[in-house]
């Protein structure tokens, strides 16, 4: 009888799953669901859709477990699957242009850092503003900024998740930073 616990390493749990111990997979799901969900939610910005996509990603991971060769972390591999599914979900959805509605969100910005009334700005409003700026980027840019600057993955891990080379990831990250910076500056100009 195979035994496992919450402390059993991912690699052993994967082997147990391969050997037919279905319940070992629940430990993997429980362990990594939050991380995978966070990545997908930051990219998609929709809680229900992110939940569905992450569930689908774990199910696909289980079905394709034979394709996981341990060259990356299990969570990285599931993130890769989830991001692919997220991309599919976004495909066909009309992308908003980068600067639309910028004035609408700019009203939340303080006129200047020293403006005392602006100090009362709710933290969540500020966060919503930043998230809305991020949401205005094309998904390919949003992905790399989320992975690099929020979830703090290495370029190597990002390359695995995005199924591309490290060089491509760096180039895309550079462009995404520029795009975000332009949005940010445009936002400040609107607020000034």
């Amino acid at each position: 009888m195979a035994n496992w616990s919450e402390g059993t390493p991912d690699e052993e749990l994967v082997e147990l799953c391969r050997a037919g111990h279905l319940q070992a997979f629940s430990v993997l799901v429980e362990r990594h669901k939050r991380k995978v969900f966070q990545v997908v939610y930051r990219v998609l910005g929709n809680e229900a859709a992110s939940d569905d996509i992450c569930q689908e990603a774990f199910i696909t991971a289980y079905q394709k477990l034979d394709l996981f060769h341990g060259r990356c972390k299990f969570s990285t591999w599931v993130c890769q699957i989830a991001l692919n599914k997220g991309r599919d979900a976004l495909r066909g959805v009309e992308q908003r242009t980068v600067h639309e509605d910028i004035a609408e969100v700019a009203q939340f910005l303080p006129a200047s850092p020293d403006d005392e009334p602006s100090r009362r700005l709710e933290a969540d409003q500020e966060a919503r503003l930043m998230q809305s700026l991020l949401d205005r980027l094309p998904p390919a840019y949003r992905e790399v900024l989320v992975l690099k600057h929020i979830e703090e993955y290495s370029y190597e891990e990002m390359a695995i998740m995005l199924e591309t080379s490290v060089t491509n990831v760096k180039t895309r990250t550079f462009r995404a930073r520029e795009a975000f910076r332009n949005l940010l500056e445009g936002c400040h100009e609107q607020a000034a």
Partner: protein
Amino acid sequence: MSKPRDYELWAERIDDLDRTQLTVEQTNAIEAFDRAFEILKKTPSPEPSADFTRSVMARLAPRPQPQPQPQPSLRTRLLRWMHAHPFAGWQFGGAAFAAMIIGLVFVPLQPDPIGASRSGIGSMAQSAPAAGTEFVLYAPQASEVLVVGDFNGWGSAGAVKLQPAANGTWRAQIKLNPGQYQYAFVVNGKQWLADPGAMRHVDDDFGRKNSILLVM
């Protein structure tokens, strides 16, 4: 040291720039960027749904386990081969004659029970038709050992379970009619293992090895 250009500022070097070298505008831009992502990082994202794990698990079906493939009998495979090579019959006839001669010479050779590997997993199928042929496998870590072969339809007619015996060995006796058989062990329901103590092995059609047993 020259001040970094904007291109360099937003390229990879943003991660390890010497910020004392930046212009005021560049510093402001970098700080605004960093602040934006500090805010985003601190923003709590929602949690996965409460029944996330249960929902996933409810939709999983047990993974199909690799089953030992029933292997056609030697006669069937021979007929298939002859069908595929209609003009090679005479060659086969010659080969069969040669095999018969070789068989006559080498049939007295029996597996040496002492020669069985006793380190790791090792085994020996001993031919003793009166009491049955004994299959022995040394596998102290195993939880289950089966023997499958063309004598039991490669498991389709019921695989024989070996019983745990002393010193990490597993044993089973099967009554077999005189003849030549191919067989293998299946350890823990998934590991296909040719008998390391057998005198001869052959490649099966699935990239594995089978052991050869001669019962006289």
